[in-house]
């Protein structure tokens, strides 16, 4: 079941997960702030994944700028079992990062296709609908509140 702190992400992420047949997915801001998740069972996992995804995206973007002047786009790590797909999508004037974990029930081509549909859906969300509330300055409280929503405790 997809759970979202940001309601505007609920339908697009649900559609992406269902159609692309990915096992787990998380959507977050480039800062690492979690926006929605599907398939994770522990808050600790989501926190760790978001931190890692934000760091990978920041590193890959900077590496792209250093070598070619432009940030790199989607990233895929293949393995014999599970695979990960990480990509940014423009959402209004901001950016949403999505990490999807999938296995051989689907394929990279199918995941890429439905991620493009997800990106089209979130690209048209108005900025006023996209607002998830400003950070209060108390990061721990924000994190605790968001994780509570994502895991159905709020």
């Amino acid at each position, binding site marked *: 079941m997809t759970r979202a702190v940001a309601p505007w992400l609920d339908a697009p992420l649900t559609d992406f997960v269902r159609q692309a047949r990915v096992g787990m997915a998380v959507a977050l801001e480039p800062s690492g702030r979690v926006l929605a998740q599907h398939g994770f069972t522990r808050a600790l996992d989501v926190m760790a994944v978001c931190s890692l995804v934000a760091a990978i995206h920041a590193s890959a973007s900077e590496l792209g700028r250093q070598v070619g002047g432009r940030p790199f786009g989607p990233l895929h790590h293949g393995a014999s079992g599970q695979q990960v797909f990480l990509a940014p999508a423009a959402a209004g004037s901001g950016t949403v990062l999505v990490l999807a974990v999938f296995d051989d029930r689907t394929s*990279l*081509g199918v995941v890429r296709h439905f991620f493009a549909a997800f990106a089209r859906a979130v690209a048209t969300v108005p900025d006023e609908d996209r607002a998830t509330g400003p950070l209060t300055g108390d990061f721990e409280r924000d994190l605790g509140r968001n994780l509570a929503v994502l895991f159905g405790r709020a």
Partner: protein
Amino acid sequence: MTALLQETLGVLARVPGVRAAVAATVSDGLAAAAVASVEVDADTLAAFAAALFQRTRRANVAAGYGDTHQLVLDATGGRLFVAARGDLALVVLAERDAGAGLIRVALQRAVRSA
């Protein structure tokens, strides 16, 4: 390799009624080369045709029928042909009235030479 694939796809694309010929990896569903008319999205065709072929291949293995050589999908508006050797799939999208026999023979030859 790409030149050979492109040449192979060119042969398939010249069969009357063929709208697209795409080479794709079965496991990833990514297009490696394509000869397609402008309205065909080769990446999408590669992704879904490869996924379909992979599922068919698994179903045939599960049923004890062995390896899948070719898949033909008939639809109201056209036909889809997929043949594979190992992880390379050749995909042909054709008009409904295109010569299915001719396409199947060409596809088998192409997959042997690719």
